[in-house]
């Protein structure tokens, strides 16, 4: 409940910050469809990666890397909070 509340509050703030961007004009449909065509072609053929690397290894490595990255950043975030606390370390 607490996590949901915090996330919802952050969402509201993010949405408020993003509201001014809503006045941006729409991108021409032709451009969007052309880009979609290109990237869909690219994404649908991502299977070619199988030739260059083992997908299973790639997925496992990616998961571990994300976990390490999260741990590292979480540590820095926690330390940042702790440094803000008015507690003497002497």
């Amino acid at each position, binding site marked *: 409940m607490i996590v949901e509340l915090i996330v919802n509050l952050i969402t509201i703030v993010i949405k408020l910050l993003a509201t001014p961007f809503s006045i941006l004009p729409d991108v021409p449909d032709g*451009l969007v469809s052309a880009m979609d065509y290109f990237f869909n072609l690219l994404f649908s053929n*991502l299977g070619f990666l*199988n*030739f260059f*690397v*083992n997908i299973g290894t790639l997925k496992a490595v990616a998961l571990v*890397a994300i976990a390490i990255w999260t741990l590292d950043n979480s*540590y820095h975030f926690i*330390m940042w909070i702790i440094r803000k606390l008015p507690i003497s370390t002497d």
Partner: protein
Amino acid sequence: MFIIVFLLLFVILLILLLGYVLIPKSSLDGFVNEIKFNICSTRNLEYGDNKYSVLGYLDFGLGEKYFYNLKNSYKEGSQFYNFDWGNFGGVSNHWESFFFTGIYDTDKKTFTLPFMTDIPISITYTNAEGKHTIKPGYAVGPSVGDPSFSNKDEIASGKFTKVLVNSGKYNTSVSDPLYLLSFYYPSGSDDFADLLPRKEILLNGPSSEYYVGCDSNGYYLYEIPSAALGIDLVEGNQYELKLGVLGWIEEFNQNGYIKYPDSVKFAIGTVSAEEKEQEYRDKQLEIQKEQAETNKGIWDSLKEVLSYLNPFSENFFVYKLIELLIEGLKSLFVPSEDFFTNWFQDLNDYFSDVLGILYYPFDLLVKFFTRIGELEDTRSAVISWNNFDFMGATLIKAGSYDLYSLIDNNETFKNIHSIYLIFTDIILWLGVIFLGSNCLRTIFGGMIGEAVDVSTENERGYQNYSRQASYRKRYKEEHGKK
């Protein structure tokens, strides 16, 4: 300081672990994703061709029951009812395979599709447990047969709760409608008033509220409760049930019952003294059982209350309190199952609406990672492309190319490729190990040797600093006055 950090890390790890363990896993087990309905026949299924039929009804629609009367294009003289595919749950093309979502009993994990066909068909559906195939009843078509009571002996005994009727060929190949007629003979005479039915129940196939399905011949089956017969079944009275076929009577120039294919007379029999005694004994036995159950219930309740005070019992109230606390904490900190999925989807939709093209790169990233997640570790690397048209002319024709075709015919290349893949694996894992090592250095301050080096450097630095400070002090003392 480090203790606080370690404690915090420990708490975070604990919360993550609890979250992983306690978040309920997907409750979609058994949920039906789709049903594919295949007509497995070499017959010509052209629309209007009167060569196929589907009899009965289908239940489908998730959580709701839809009733489809398939008798929508009956052709006189035909043995079959045509199935108008266009009316089948929004399916527009009768010659195409089509999809619909079906009723699925999540408790029993079963489908009930009581319908008959004159061609073998199969229905496949997929759910979390995989793909399943069910085959509904198959009949070559109804053969000739008269309507009849299926539980005639039971009705004749006067002790029945329902009347079972088999339609025979009626309502499946004969256009004259079938009725169940209830007669009551209060005077026991052949009084004209007694010859009129007290109630007429139309048995018109799947449209009838008493229709329950088809038998192996494709005949319709009905189940009519005795309460629906329209007559009060009183002990000692004489009754009769008839199945009547309504048709045009030339003689009287009007509609009337042209045939009574089956009938059964019965009386609600008197209860003998023995039966009454047996009934009394049964009732007493039932009361005794109820009393025993009540006593047992009181004793069980008492045991349950005492178990809350017993520290060796699983129900000990402290354990319950801890359970409650854990549940409370869980509901407080662990978000609901789909919260983050929905949140991410919501933000994704919102930003793609608001930011438009500015959000496109992020959207692409999401699609890219989703696609990577969907990739399977198969020995296939096919690149395919569609036609590329420009001003009406096809510049590039659609095609595909498998990269493995480069090496498939050459054993040397195959071996080199295998070795190359092994090396890429090693490089990837080394990269991860290097990343992890860096992370550890950041958090714990490096390895022991490095720590010693740093400490030595610091010591030397301090000595240098002290030496320089003493020089400065002495210099100030000697030259300070100047």
